[in-house]
C-alpha cells in the first residue's frame, strides 16, 4: 500500500527542531488522533519498525497519527546528553499542540512503548487527553536505569573479559563528568536523576485519571502481566474504565532473532481501543 499520505517534517521549537512523521488517513473517522511517544535510547530503535507499522494500521483505520523524536533522540536536534525531563515534556506539548492545530484533533489519545508509555501516563492529564495506550510501560525509572547499567557491565565483560568499572564506579564517574555511557548513548546526570526519581505508582495523583489500555508482552502462556504493568494498573485513578491485557510475545525492545515489525495480534488491541473501546467499557 502506498503510504502517500505520510509527511515528514521538522517542527520548530525554541530555536531547535523536532523531527515528526504525520500519518493522515485518506478517509477520516471521527475527530480523534493518536500522538505516539517513543522509548528511550536503543529501545527506540528496536521497536521502531513496529511503531511505524502500528501508526500505519491506526491510520488505515481512519485515525491521524503523529510520531515525533524527542530532542536528543532520532533525527531531532541536541546530543543525547542534553535531554532532560523538562525538554521531554516541552517536546510532547509542542507536538500535541501542533497535531491539534494542523489536524483539528478534538480527542487526543497518547500511545507509547516502554518509557514512551510512562510519559504518556504522566502527561496525558495536563494535555487534556481522552485516553492512553501503553505497551510494557516503565513504572519506576530508578529500577529501569539500574537494569540498563547492567548492559554497560556486559559490554565490559565482552571487551575486557572482566568488569573494570562496577556500577558504583560508573555512577561516580557520571557525577564527575556529567554524563554516563549506556550502550554508546550519553545520558546526562540531570536526566539520570530525574528518571531515577520517577515512580508513578507511588504518586497516583501524577497518573492520568482517564481510561487507559496497558498491554503486557509475555513469553509464557498463562503468566501474569509483568510486575510494572500490574503496579501501574493498580495505581490508576481511572482503573474502572481501564484495561490491563496480556499478549504472548517476546519483548520487542531488545535484541532477538526475529525482526520485530509487530503484527495483527499486537496492533488489534490498540485499533479497538482508539477506535472507540476507550469510551467506558468495563475493565478486565
Amino acid at each position: 500500500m502506498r503510504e502517500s499520505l505520510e509527511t515528514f517534517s521538522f517542527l520548530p521549537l525554541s530555536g531547535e527542531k523536532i523531527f515528526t512523521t504525520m500519518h493522515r488517513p485518506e478517509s477520516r473517522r471521527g475527530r480523534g488522533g493518536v500522538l505516539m511517544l517513543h522509548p528511550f535510547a536503543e529501545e527506540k530503535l528496536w521497536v521502531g519498525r513496529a511503531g511505524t507499522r502500528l501508526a500505519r494500521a491506526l491510520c488505515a483505520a481512519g485515525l491521524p497519527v503523529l510520531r515525533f523524536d524527542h530532542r536528543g533522540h532520532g533525527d531531532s536536534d541536541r546530543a543525547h546528553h542534553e535531554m532532560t525531563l523538562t525538554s521531554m515534556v516541552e517536546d510532547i506539548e509542542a507536538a500535541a499542540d501542533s497535531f491539534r492545530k494542523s489536524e483539528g484533533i478534538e480527542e487526543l489519545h497518547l500511545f507509547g512503548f516502554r518509557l514512551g508509555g510512562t510519559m504518556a501516563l504522566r502527561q496525558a492529564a495536563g494535555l487534556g487527553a481522552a485516553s492512553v495506550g501503553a505497551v510494557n510501560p516503565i513504572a519506576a525509572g530508578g529500577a529501569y536505569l539500574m537494569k540498563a547499567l547492567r548492559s554497560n557491565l556486559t559490554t565490559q565483560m565482552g571487551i575486557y573479559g572482566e568488569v573494570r568499572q562496577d556500577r558504583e564506579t560508573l555512577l561516580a564517574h557520571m557525577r564527575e563528568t556529567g554524563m554516563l555511557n549506556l550502550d554508546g548513548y550519553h545520558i546526562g546526570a540531570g536526566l539520570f536523576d530525574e528518571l531515577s526519581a520517577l515512580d508513578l505508582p507511588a504518586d497516583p495523583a501524577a497518573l492520568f485519571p482517564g481510561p487507559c489500555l496497558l498491554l503486557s508482552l509475555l513469553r509464557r502462556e498463562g503468566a501474569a502481566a509483568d510486575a510494572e504493568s500490574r503496579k501501574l494498573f493498580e495505581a490508576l485513578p481511572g482503573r474502572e474504565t481501564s484495561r490491563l491485557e496480556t499478549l504472548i510475545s517476546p519483548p520487542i525492545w531488545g535484541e532477538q532473532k526475529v525482526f520485530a515489525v509487530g503484527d495483527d495480534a499486537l496492533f488489534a488491541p490498540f485499533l479497538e481501543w482508539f477506535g472507540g473501546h476507550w469510551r467506558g467499557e468495563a475493565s478486565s
Partner: protein
Amino acid sequence: MRDYPSLEASRPLNEEILCFESRGHRLPGILSRPERPLPGGPGVVIMSPGLKHRVGPHRMSVKLARLFTELGLPVLRFDFHGTGDAEGELPSRSVPELHESIQNGYFADDASKAVAALCEASGLDKVITCGLCGGAITGLYAAEADSRVDGIIGFQLPVKKLDLEADYADQISSEYSDFILTLYLKKIFKPEAWKNFLSGKSEYSLIWKTATRRIYRLFRGGRGQEVDIPDGMNLNFLRAYDAVAGRVKMQWIYSVEERARYDFEGDFEKICLADRERPYDKIVLPDSNHEFAPDDAQARLFTEIEAWVQRNYGRNTDEEG
C-alpha cells in the same frame, strides 16, 4: 585524539528531509549540509547496518553526520525499504536470513538510489559511502554499481557468508578459531567454567573443533593446505572488491576482537589477496564492541575517520577567528 564526548551544547545541524524512490518504495532520508563546504569535497552516504533505523546504533549516524559536516561534507542518512520509516516490507522476519541477504547485496539498489539522490541534491558527482557491518558491505556494492562512489569507509566489514545450515565452528577462519581456543584455555583453571562444562552448558562442538583444528595444523606444520578461496568466503564481496580495488579509496576499521576482523585478515588478506597489493587503509581499534559503544572507541573511530578524509580529500583552510 578527538575530544569526545563533550558536555558542550551541540549546535543544531543544517538539515532537511530528502525522500527518494527505490523500486517503487519511498525511502526517507535526512540531508545534513555543512556550514563551510569543502571545495571539491565529496558527499557522504551513511548506510545503516541493515535492519535498524537510519540513525544507527546509539545514534551513530547522527554523530557521523555532525563529524562529516564539520569537515565540510554534505551527508545523507536514510532508511532501506522495509525498515525504519520507509515503505515496503522485507521478505523474511528471520534476522539471520535477513543479515545473509544484506551481505549478499539485498539493499544494493536502495544504496545506489541514495547515491544518486545525494548527488542530485548536493550538485556533487563524488561520494563516500560509510557504514557499519551490513552498511559497510552495502556501501561496497554501491561503489561497484556507481562510479561516482569515490571512497568507502566501512566498520566491521563482513567478508564471509553466513551459512545458516553449517556448524558455526566450520565457518570461522583459522585465526578466529585459534582466538576462541585461547579464550577457552584461559578458563581451564576456573571452577565456574568446569561447572558449565560438566552441566551441559558449554559449546562442545566448538571446543572440540577449535582444538582439533589447532592440533591438526601443529602436526601438519607449515601453512596447511593451499586454497585459492577459503571455504565460506562471500563471493559477492570478492567480486565487488575486485571491481573497485584501485579505483576507490577504502578505509576498513575493525575492533580487535571482532570476528569479522579475523575473517578479513586470516582468510581475505592472507589467502585471497596473498601477495597482491592492498589498496586500502586498515585500522584495528582496541577496547571496543561491535558498535563502538565505549567512549574511547567512539573517540578513536572519529579521529581515524577525520584523518582519512583529510588525507584523501583535503581540509578547509579558512580558519575561524
